[in-house]
């Protein structure tokens, strides 16, 4: 291979393709070779689509030769989390019991990506049933963090995070219901966007949590995140929860900067985590201030308030989605290494009174209003993306005598899934031993353009996104 395309952004690759300096086939073959070389160590794919990807790329090259260029995703190699349906290609949701499941129809997000000209390189490994953030799949094996393969890339979209960080693809489509896009983004040093609930269609995606699931892109740059969202967002008749609001041009205001921006911080909320994470977050605030933004102290609903109602909603919706899976294949939940939800949990989920669920959703409404009021005078709210910079596979980190917990793991990402508002994680530093750290930008529902603008300004003022893992 004559040219090193490894860490080129979507913007850079598409400029090459559009100018006929790079063919779609070359881009795809480069991605395949890198995958063949590195994925034995990362275990980031469940299925690699070598031949179909090359064939798709050939057709896309013919289109370009005929003068038909679809846009910035034309010929770009991407991956898809393996709980997103792909026509004619097995879609397992990370469970071997579903190896025989071959959908006849693409999910809405896959249709949109294909229509935009993206080339599907394969299906990314993930936490089984998108359940948990460990990156440890008992059926398909542990996914390895490219920055240190002894550690997890996070989950549940762990394969997606690892692939983007390692330069196997420039874009992977994941999903987030408790941090499953932003946690891998933070741990792998890439950009992860969880848009507003209803901004991207869930049609054809393994239904885990109906009111909380959010598909979202993982990329290496904020600009690429905007390009991906442009291709993914919009009303879809197949998912009645998708919003009817128009999709704005996400690139339009990207470069306007954040001078005069009011950035909300809740000091109590942002007080939990490994010391190096909290230090990197403070440094990020200084950078934002230097860019002309002002920091405003706000008080959003506490994590404890949110998790009380969220636990009930998560459990009831899990009961619906995973209860039927349990009946089909109980061994998936009763095995020695079950997903985060065990067989006992499934039974409990199915026993929660409906009144509890309705009250919890009423409480979510109350907290959504409280959050919107608390952040009304801000442009964006910022917080660490994840409390840890390092995620061992078997436990949460320990610092001194303090053992971190599962609540700490979900503290920063989960509330914004629960509230349904957009949140984007971008790299904000590295630990002394070389692990990436993320900061997330959050804003009001359907205001993705603002988080992209703020995160872009921050990214351009730092060089964290230019660092990449080195493989010997």
């Amino acid at each position, binding site marked *: 291979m004559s040219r090193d395309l490894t860490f080129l952004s979507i913007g850079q690759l598409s400029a090459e393709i559009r100018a006929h300096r790079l063919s779609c086939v070359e881009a795809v073959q480069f991605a395949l070779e890198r995958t063949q070389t590195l994925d034995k160590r990362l275990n980031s794919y469940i299925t690699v689509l070598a031949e179909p990807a090359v064939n798709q790329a050939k057709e896309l090259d013919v289109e370009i030769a005929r003068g038909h260029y679809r846009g910035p995703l034309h010929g770009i190699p991407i991956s898809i989390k393996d709980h997103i349906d792909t026509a004619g290609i097995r879609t397992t949701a990370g469970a071997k019991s579903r190896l025989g499941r071959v959908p006849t129809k693409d999910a809405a997000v896959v249709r949109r990506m294909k229509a935009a000209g993206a080339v599907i390189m394969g299906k990314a490994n993930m936490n089984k049933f998108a359940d948990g953030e460990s990156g440890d799949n008992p059926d398909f094996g542990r996914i390895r963090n490219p920055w240190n393969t002894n550690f997890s890339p996070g989950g549940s979209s762990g394969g997606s995070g690892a692939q983007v960080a390692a330069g196997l693809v420039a874009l992977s489509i994941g999903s987030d219901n408790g941090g499953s896009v932003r946690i891998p983004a933070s741990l792998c040093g890439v950009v992860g966007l969880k848009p507003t609930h209803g901004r991207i269609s869930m049609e054809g995606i393994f239904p885990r949590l109906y009111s909380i699931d959010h598909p979202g892109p993982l990329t290496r740059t904020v600009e690429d995140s905007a390009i991906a969202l442009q291709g993914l967002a919009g009303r879809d008749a197949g998912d009645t929860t998708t919003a009817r609001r128009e999709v704005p041009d996400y690139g339009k205001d990207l470069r306007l900067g954040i001078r005069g921006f009011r950035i909300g911080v809740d000091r109590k909320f942002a007080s939990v985590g490994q010391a190096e994470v909290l230090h990197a977050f403070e440094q990020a605030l200084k950078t934002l201030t230097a860019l002309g933004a002002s920091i405003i102290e706000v008080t959003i609903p506490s994590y404890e308030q949110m998790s009380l109602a969220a636990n009930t909603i998560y459990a009831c919706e899990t009961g619906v989605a995973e209860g039927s899976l349990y009946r089909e294949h109980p061994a998936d939940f009763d095995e020695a290494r079950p997903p985060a939800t065990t067989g006992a949990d499934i039974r409990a989920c199915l026993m*929660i009174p409906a009144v509890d669920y309705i009250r919890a959703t009423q409480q979510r409404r109350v907290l959504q209003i409280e959050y919107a009021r608390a952040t009304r005078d801000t442009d964006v709210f910022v917080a660490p993306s994840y409390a840890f910079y390092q995620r061992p596979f078997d436990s949460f980190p320990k610092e001194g005598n303090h053992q971190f917990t599962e609540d700490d793991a979900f503290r920063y990402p989960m509330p914004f899934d629960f509230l349904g508002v957009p949140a984007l994680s971008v790299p904000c530093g590295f630990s002394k031993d070389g692990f990436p750290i993320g900061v997330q930008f959050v804003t009001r529902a359907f205001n993705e353009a603002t988080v992209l603008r703020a995160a872009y300004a921050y990214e351009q003022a730092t060089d964290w996104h230019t660092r990449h893992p080195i493989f010997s």
Partner: protein
Amino acid sequence: MKRRDAVVSLTASGVGALLSSCTSSNPKEVISDQQAALFVRQMTGIEMKPGQWAAIQESLKQSRFTSDVDATIQPQSDFDPVVDL
């Protein structure tokens, strides 16, 4: 036995407060394995495994929402500040 009949039957046998016992504020009530198995089967349609009741109770405790909420609130999941605030 229909689910309602099962609940009536369990109530008669002294475990009617079973669900309310599965909250963080109430102590566990002691019921027999047989009663628990019947209750779980009727409520979920799934057989309980031997020795699983304690784990189910613990999971239920963490998942129940029993706080008071204004009953007039519409429980929509999506929130649009332009429309809703």
